[in-house]
């Protein structure tokens, strides 16, 4: 949704990203942060499993 009442660029005088004024920025920020954490968890598990094969 266009974040201003009138869907016209001429009324845009500030933030113009998708979701401005709604909860979308917060939700996407949270999801992005969760992705980072999950990638680390998955990365750690897979690397640890591979490294175990080389344990003496």
């Amino acid at each position, binding site marked *: 949704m266009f974040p201003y009442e009138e869907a016209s660029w001429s009324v*845009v*005088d*500030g*933030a*113009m*990203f998708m979701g*401005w004024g709604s*909860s979308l*920025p*917060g939700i*996407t*920020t949270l999801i*992005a*942060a969760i992705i*980072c954490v999950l990638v*680390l968890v998955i*990365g*750690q598990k897979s*690397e*640890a499993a*591979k*490294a*175990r094969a*080389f*344990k*003496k």
Partner: protein
Amino acid sequence: MEEQLAELAAKIADLEAAGGGAVVTNTMFAETFYYLTIPLMIIIHAGFLAYEMGASRLKNVLSSGVKNLLAFAFMIPTFYFFGWWVYWGFPTGLPGAPGPAGISGVEYANSIAWGWGESAQYMGPNIADQASGVFFGAFAMFAATTASIMSGAVIERIQTVGFIILAVVLGSFAWVVAAAWGWHADGWMVTQFGVHDFGAAGLVHAVAGFFALGVLINLGPRIGKFNPDGTANHIPGHNMPLTVVGLMLIIVGFWGFLMACVIVPGEAWSWFGDKPSTIYGTPITLSALSFNILMAIAGGIIGAWLFTRDPFWMMSGALAGIISTASGLDIYFPALAFIIAFSAGVILKPCADWLENRGIDDAVGAVTVHGTIGLYGVVMLGIWGSGYPALQGAAGEVPTISLMGQIIGALVFFLCGFVPGYIVSLILKVLGMLRVPEGAELAGMDIVKVPASGYPEWGGDAPVTPAHPAE
């Protein structure tokens, strides 16, 4: 009469239009200025990438590269999520009260640096805000630089995820705290002790270098680095030319790094309408930087060559030259910058040897180049620059640079790096997330971590690309 009035009105309108144009031009200049520092600073990372991969043995070359790339990639979102908020929130220390310049404190940070609610307007596309994004970008690159500094020291035996966690703690927290305290105009080290660190010798380099030292103590040396009697073996990397070119790329990128430490004039957030300033509001010019950075690079190379004759240490000397003068690049005389940088180049290798003789395996000399020389640079400014007002204003109204103030600054920067580096790496060690198993280290980290080969034609089992496919 009416015609004259109409002419006058037209002239006034023209003048107003011209003035408005000048304002737009200045704003565009300011935005472009910082925007261009970002790709320049990415060159630092190209340099660190080449430098680390070159310093790795053949069996570890790609894993060193992957580690470096991931540090860069994780630094940006984590700095977006919370690092930027820490910088604005805590210049006055805990609990985050507002400072005299009115651009700090938790309440202020809440209003500009979170990616949700009202503050999100400053953390995304906004036609009325041409500053926040480029400032964020430049600071995110400073953050990534700290992670890359630590990255080189720990190559060839650290786990990937453990390393990323350490990189995030360093790049999105530890150095940010040091920057808030010693770089922000409301920083307590600046307002109370007159700490001056224009080019971040302490708050970036020393913090990152001593963070790396804290990690290295818990990580331990590479297998084969030290003999049973404690003497050290040199473990050469697989490609010295790549390492040396990487170091030169870091030098190139540092022009962007130091350029980003300048506040341009004429904007609502500028210190002056007509001249550039440091982040402290003290005057500076890009000409000053040109004089002093070049002389520092030269001094560092020459100083390192004197006793080492080694291109690795010569280019490390160039870095040490910049770092040793970074705190005062705004006010040093070029010949003095040369002398300080020369002395840094001379002491560089003995300092690295001293550390190695104490059982620390710093694969690329990062603790010495960035940590020791960073603190050396902070203290040097206290010796040479005493009496200079540390902030915009006159001595008496604002604190002045002093040897004691710079020593206090150096001590705080050391602690900001070493303490979190040691504690977090100790926790990771206890959790088994710090070091790869011995067998994996001996086999080579590429075979464990990376489904690709750096030099496939050199590997014993790798397919050989035929020189002449027809044969």
